[in-house]
């Protein structure tokens, strides 16, 4: 899956269960899952949250980008387990040994807790990213009262960045066949950046100019422009917002209370 398609999310026309959840509720869900994970040190709860995140992804859509992000974070977590298992400052109890090297229980539990939190955040964010398209976000923000110009500026970042990345790949290929190859020294590397950077900047500016002109011609600045009418497909919006916000406040309060009570 490309960056663009990842950001574009689910295809239009197909209505699935996650399409009934509005983008703000999905963002609040990420917040709640992350807060719950950070508020607890219980590994069973962390396992439950990871399972929940995985199920959310499996029942919605698994993208190759999410799988890559998970693969990379699992590699980091493994590194963290090894380092903390060996060198965590509170290590006391030897849990097991591999070829004479002792791994400590305290460090491994600490690293597992941290790693679980990372996984929970990645899984929850992955759910949001693969189930919410840019146009859905834009429509929702506009319907929520934000000016369409502000929404365009916010959302154009999501469209333009993948476009720039795509342009860069094309330009890199076009320059490679002219003889620009990966260089070894810093000066050589800097020299090989120019052939990519100059066309990229010019192309991006040119595309921005074209986009701006075409938007003007399509009446972007029209003072009579009205916001899109709501398709009203989201369910339980108020209930979800109130419930998830309340849960977030409770979790923040709980975390603060445990910190304060620890100091007293």
């Amino acid at each position: 899956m490309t960056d663009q398609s990842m950001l574009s999310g689910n295809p239009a026309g197909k209505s699935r269960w996650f399409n009934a959840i509005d983008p703000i509720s999905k963002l609040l869900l990420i917040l709640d899952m992350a807060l719950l994970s950070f508020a607890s040190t219980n590994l069973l709860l962390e396992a439950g949250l990871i399972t929940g995140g995985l199920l959310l992804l499996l029942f919605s859509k698994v993208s190759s980008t999410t799988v890559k992000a998970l693969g990379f974070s699992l590699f980091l977590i493994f590194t963290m387990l090894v380092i903390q298992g060996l060198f965590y400052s509170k290590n006391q109890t030897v849990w097991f040994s591999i070829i004479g090297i002792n791994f400590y229980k305290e460090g491994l539990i600490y690293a597992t807790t941290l790693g679980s939190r990372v996984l929970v955040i990645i899984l929850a964010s992955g759910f949001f990213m693969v189930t919410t398209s840019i146009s859905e976000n834009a429509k929702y923000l506009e319907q929520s009262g934000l000016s369409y110009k502000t929404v365009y500026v916010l959302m154009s970042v999501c469209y333009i960045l993948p476009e720039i990345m795509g342009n860069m790949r094309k330009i890199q290929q076009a320059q490679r066949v002219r003889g620009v190859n990966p260089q070894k020294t810093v000066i050589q590397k800097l020299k090989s950046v120019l052939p990519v950077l100059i066309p990229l900047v010019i192309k991006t500016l040119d595309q921005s100019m074209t986009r701006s002109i075409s938007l003007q011609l399509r009446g972007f600045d029209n003072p009579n422009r009205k916001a899109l009418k709501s398709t009203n497909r989201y369910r339980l919006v108020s209930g979800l917002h109130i419930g998830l916000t309340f849960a977030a406040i409770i979790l923040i309060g709980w975390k603060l209370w445990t910190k304060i009570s620890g100091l007293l």
Partner: protein
Amino acid sequence: MAKIELQDLQFAYPGKSFNLAVKQQVFADPMTAIVGQNGAGKSTIFKLLTGLLQPDTGIIKVDGHDLADFKPVDRLKTIGITFQNPDDQLFNATVKREVEWSLSQVNDDRDANSQQADKVLANVGLAEKAAENPYDLSLSERKLLTIATVLAIDPEIYLFDEPMISLDSPSKLMLTQIFHELVADGHQVITITHDMDWVAAEFGAVCVMEHGRIQFTGTPRALFGDRGLVERVGLLPPKVMELTSMLGDSRVYLSPEDYYKQNLGK
């Protein structure tokens, strides 16, 4: 003339359903056009030939030597390519410097490079614009400039990806003339194009691609004589054939001159 040979070539883009599979293909004609609908695999073949993509299996040979064994400089001297969009390749401050930069990738002699750049720019009609910034040129001129950067190196094989797009009529005639001169000098020209009139009138061989497979290789006359194939792969016959078939003549005509020769020139 150098000869490109593809053997048991397979390539798939990660995460995409498209896959290219070529059992055996030899590009033997000095002027070959690769045609087919968008997504047929034409540009993928070009990227494999220039080393931008590596085949999953199979070998690409140039004059019997595995292309994978070529050093970057040797590859530049053997195969030159221009892409569709000239703006992806231009970055120097002047038109002449752009051509000299390409030359400097294969030759360190600045004086010789300067002379060669002047000569090539004159060939493509850009001699008077040598001191201008490439981005001040028209799109047609920028396209000719990217072609000049390849002509300057004088590789054995030229690959052109849609060279006629965005060229005005005089530039199209000039480029066709340059192609014939290259062929006369013993070079090979392989071109991706959708312009069937041009293919029919100027090329010695056509290679038709569909869904990552080569469906046909032969002369334009043989291709346009097989109306079933032409229709199936979504190609349009040359305009002269469209007209003559409306008039009830089912013979193959590659150009108005060909029509004249077959009917009136006897």
